[in-house]
């Protein structure tokens, strides 16, 4: 069965699906989760707008960005598919109460982001991932180690990141929101996992 149909059947409410001329438009909600100042906003800015700002400004609440991917032909469906990401930039949460979990509701996947220069942010990924999966038990995760541009290769940190990825049976990727290194890869890796793009 084609990916697009699979998605449609699997989670009818988590995606907005409608036709645009002949194209099938699939909107997916994905979240960026992780501790404060790990670079969630910068990753989105780089992926959506190809820009980076050195100044750190903490996010309050949630900001949605939209990224429309180029249409692709799905030969099995015989349709053109227009994928759109609704990307939720969620502030580093300190208290995972009912209200905070509402931010995660209905997401198809998440990039769980840690700062490679702050080891504690890797440990903190667990509480973010657990809370996210509480609300979206079938959603997919990709673990991200950000700030590779200022990371002095440390095998302990890589090993920590790998362990988190293994724990959630997923992959991890090292990125730099500043240079743009592997940022697109991260989002594409997640979208492949959630069955958005074949």
């Amino acid at each position, binding site marked *: 069965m084609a990916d697009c149909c699979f998605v449609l059947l699997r989670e009818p409410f988590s995606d907005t699906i409608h036709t645009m001329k002949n194209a099938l438009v699939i909107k997916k*909600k994905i979240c960026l989760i992780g501790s404060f*100042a790990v670079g969630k906003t910068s990753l989105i800015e780089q992926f959506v707008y190809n820009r980076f700002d*050195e100044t750190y*400004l*903490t996010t309050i*609440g949630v900001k*949605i960005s939209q990224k429309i991917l180029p249409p692709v032909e799905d030969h099995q469906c015989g349709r053109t598919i227009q994928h759109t990401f609704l990307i939720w930039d969620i502030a580093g949460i300190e208290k995972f109460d009912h209200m905070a979990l*509402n931010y995660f509701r*209905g997401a198809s996947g998440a990039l769980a982001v840690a700062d490679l*220069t702050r080891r504690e942010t890797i440990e903190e990924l667990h509480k973010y991932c657990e809370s996210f999966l509480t609300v979206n038990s079938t959603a997919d995760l990709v673990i991200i180690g950000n700030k590779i541009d200022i990371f002095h290769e440390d095998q302990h940190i890589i090993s920590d990141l790998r362990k988190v990825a293994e724990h959630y049976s997923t992959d991890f990727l090292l990125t730099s929101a500043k240079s743009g290194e592997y940022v697109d890869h991260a989002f594409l890796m997640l979208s492949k996992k959630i069955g958005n793009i074949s």
Partner: protein
Amino acid sequence: MNEHLKRLLEVKQIGIMTFDRDWTVVEIDQVAKTILATVEQSMSDRRLSAIFPELIGSESYIEEILDKKNNDLRLDYINRPDLNGNLKFLNLMILPSDRPNCGSLVLEDVTERALALQQINQQKYELFLYRHNSEFRRRFLSDSILGDSQAIRDLRETIHKVSRIPTTTVLLMGETGSGKNLAARVIHYSSMPADAPFVEINCAALPEHLLESELFGYEKGAFTHAVAQRQGLLEEAKGGTIFLDEIGELPINMQAKLLHVLETKKFRRLGSNQTIDVRSRIISATNRDLQHEVNRKNFREDLFYRLNVVSIRLAPLREMGDDIITIATHLLKIFNIEFKKMVNGFSDDAKQAMLNYSWPGNVRELSNCLERTMIFIEKDQIDAQDLIFFQSPSPQILPANQNWTVPSNGIVLEDVERQLIMSALTLARNNKSKAARLLGLTRDTLRYRLEKYQLE
């Protein structure tokens, strides 16, 4: 909804939108319209998901609210740009509606609250990062070196490189007041853990025998007054930085001892035969031309080369062009806070005057100049004539044996006093505080005399 509740929501600026099971907005009140207008949200498409894409993904949950199986759905601090590109923050809440098969969306503009929260979080997180993250500290401290001239950019770049190697010895050279102390601190805090010690010693301020015991420490009984063992500064700086300010003033005997420490990376407390390893970075600073002092045999050549592993020259203020205005503007902000004033900037003449002045005392002199100006100013802009570039000469103390003679036809003392006060006011351009200083009086005493002579 009853009228009282409607009125209450209106007063509290809380808007209500009612939508049906197809997610089409069927009713919207004036407050909600106003809030949406500020975030440029057109109502041409009345689908709730078009107005609030934030609700996408929560369809089934909202369906359950309409069926009254769930109480509510809250989304706080939704970020939206307003018409000027600034961020607005909205709180959304979905509730069951009195109207059958409908739901209510409660909407509130919480921008002020969100910005206050953002400010608090920003400070909290920056403080945390400053303490725990050396990369953040490096960037943060680098920003504390103000300016964009080539000299400043080069300085930032060099400091950034030096900070990456926490053991390198650094020599800072520059005129007095050019920021050597700040540069030393930036290097230290950028390269060391936040709790690593920064030990500063002014080589010109201590006599030679004290300098030695301060630096190396001593054992009990090492000399007459050594009643207990004491750690020296070299030991206290373990794992951090020792900053030797005014190294050019170091006595020649001490130069030999310091050279030995630098060569062996070891030292001994006075009166001890046990060596202690030096485990700190040494940064020294001088306003002298050390090469010249070497030529004049005032400074040991071998020590000069030991200290001069990486040398950083701090440019004098007069070479920094427009950065003078950047620094002055920064200082103005500080003095506005300190003196509770609202001076909002410099006139073009004042800027030109600052750019033309040679600033022999560099940033320290600029700071003093602006502090003096800010004490006296009572306008919202600093003009050239408000800037006091030189310390006002001290009031002339008349010699005790100065002979003042009374003319043979006599004199009215009060007339003399009145004339002197008028002269001082003219000199001080009617600034009473300045005039009082010229006369060696307090401002209150001068005010009393102005009233007495009806000079107000």
